[in-house]
């Protein structure tokens, strides 16, 4: 069981939380094509593990999953992102968050519900 934040609530999730995409510095974005992504498109939940919060490619990657690749399932992130990045991740298309260890859930919920939206 894992605690996660989805739709502005902390919930316990009993699903298998395997990592589907490890977003590391070695990940080559050139290799991400519609064909290469086919096997994971059918997953109801896609867990993207972030290795380094400075690697901002992940924001574009997630946005493209939802728009260009039309992924219809739930995008979940885990790993070493910052709580202070959660509103941006959500705006790019993340649906649920497995928080980094020892995270402050109250601060995370505050960030998610109070960050103004960029409407462009």
């Amino acid at each position, binding site marked *: 069981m894992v605690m996660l934040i989805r739709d502005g609530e902390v919930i316990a999730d009993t699903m298998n939380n395997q990592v589907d995409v490890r977003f590391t*510095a070695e990940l080559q*974005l050139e290799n991400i094509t519609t064909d290469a992504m086919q096997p994971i498109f059918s997953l109801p939940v896609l867990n993207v593990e972030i290795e380094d*919060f*400075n*690697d*901002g*490619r992940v*924001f*574009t990657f997630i*946005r493209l999953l939802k*728009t*260009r690749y039309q992924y219809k399932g739930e995008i979940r992130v885990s790993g070493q992102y*910052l709580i*202070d*990045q959660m*509103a*941006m*991740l*959500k*705006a*790019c298309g993340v649906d649920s968050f497995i928080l980094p260890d020892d995270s*402050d859930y109250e*601060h995370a919920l*505050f*960030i998610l519900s*109070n*960050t*103004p*939206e*960029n409407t*462009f």
Partner: protein
Amino acid sequence: MYQYNERDRSNLSARSVIFQRQLARHLEGKVSDDDFRPVRLQQGLYIQKHAPMLRIAIPYGMVSAKQLLALADVADRYDKDYCHITTRQNIQFNWLALNEIPQVLTRLAEADLHSIQTSGNCIRNITSDPFAGVVEDELIDPRPYCELIRQWSLGHPEFAFLPRKFKISITGSKKDRAIIQAHDIGLRLVLNAQNETGFQVLVGGGLGRTPVIGSVLSLFIAEADILDYLTSILRVYNQYGRRDNKYKARIKILVKAIGVDKFRAQVEQELINVQRYSKPLTPDQIKSYAVHFKQPEYDCISEHKLMQFSLDLLHESVEFNNWYQRNTQAHKVPGYRSVTVSLKDHSNAPGDIKSQQLQTMADLSEVYSFGVARTTHEQNIVLADVRIDQLNSLWHQLDALNLASPNIGTINDMICCPGLDFCSLANTQSIPVAKAIQTVFSDMDYVFDIGDLTLNISGCMNACAHHHLANIGILGVDKKGQQFFQISLGGQKGNNTTIGKILGPAFKAAEVPEVIEKIIQLYLSRRADTEAESESFIETISRVGIKYFKEGVYGHAH
């Protein structure tokens, strides 16, 4: 200028509350320095040598009287009674206390000011021509587009963790006063053959360790498509810019590495993808920004009055005439001039302004210039809309506060970074060198005789003072713990932006003023004067070549 609406204010307030919580969590030890760094940088907060530095965004340099008063108040109550205008038209406070930052942000927010995205690896404050909307050679006022792009980039969720910082500058004039060739993206408003408004787009310009002049990415992007095009550029950069070495992470390195043609092909491919899911901007949307920049209600000045003023000038003092010549310039509306208020008085570090001066500037902008001032990347302030018959009275009031040095565009109007005295990146003290040079050139008749000349001093290779683009550039370098200064000649900004060439081995700080004096003497002895005008310093360098100066400074041995 742009007026905040209720949504802008509530968004700013929400961001301010979030940052206060983030800062409190850090001060309570709940967030490590490493995790807090990107958060504080995106809020313009640097941990500096002596105290935190907070950089306030002045969008494309436009600042209202109310905002000048708020800045004066912060300088007075929370800082050492002054602040500093940066080379990207922003304002910095250098001596704040970390625990008072929330109060400072609250006070600034009362005047619709903030520090968001003035640092960090995100899209920074948009800069532009300080004479936008008033200058004669303007084709299209860039400010509505600056505001559009400001709003698009503020809090953009996809582009807040780019490989490195990202700077955009926009001009709408024939003559570039916004250094568009030395920005990550430089935009020039143009009309196409069908008289439609669009942009020429430059990419990959920049200074710092690797100075590069931007390349033309597109000759015409229609205004309706500009955000999609910017998104495409940023997306390609975000995905493929280097992240393994911060000195190789700017977009200029990516463009150089793959070549502008391949980069363009990637951007154009991305644009096709972007436009499958976006809508072009509508004329109404664009108009909604333009309404904020309507022409102020200028008085109609009669021909008779204009002529009278010209005659009156003959009877004014030499001091006023010098100031009129150097510090005021033509305005598109007859009977008005734009005034540049010099922050390069000998008693101040270049670009510093005291709280009382800011207060007076607020009052003067109300009385003489529709309540608006503009900051310039040359670290001065512009009152853009002054009636010619009020110039004399304005001059007297500026002069009383040491704000009327008639030195705009001269060797004394030098651009200088804060240097080692304040900045934790710098390795040399740039301000004392600036002051020593100003002392050598204190005879204004001599300064006027030298004429137009740009001199910029950067305290380290990050090049905040844009020394590469100065006619005389001075760069501080550290050699085994000792400060040396390297001199370059022939740089220029504007339509023919050129990177200066290094003259030769660096000098000790104490030697710099006499070397500059020598360079000026070499120029004066070779300049080709006609009856009508003197050849400018940069023209002489272009004609004579740098070798002549090199030999004159170092002797034939080098």
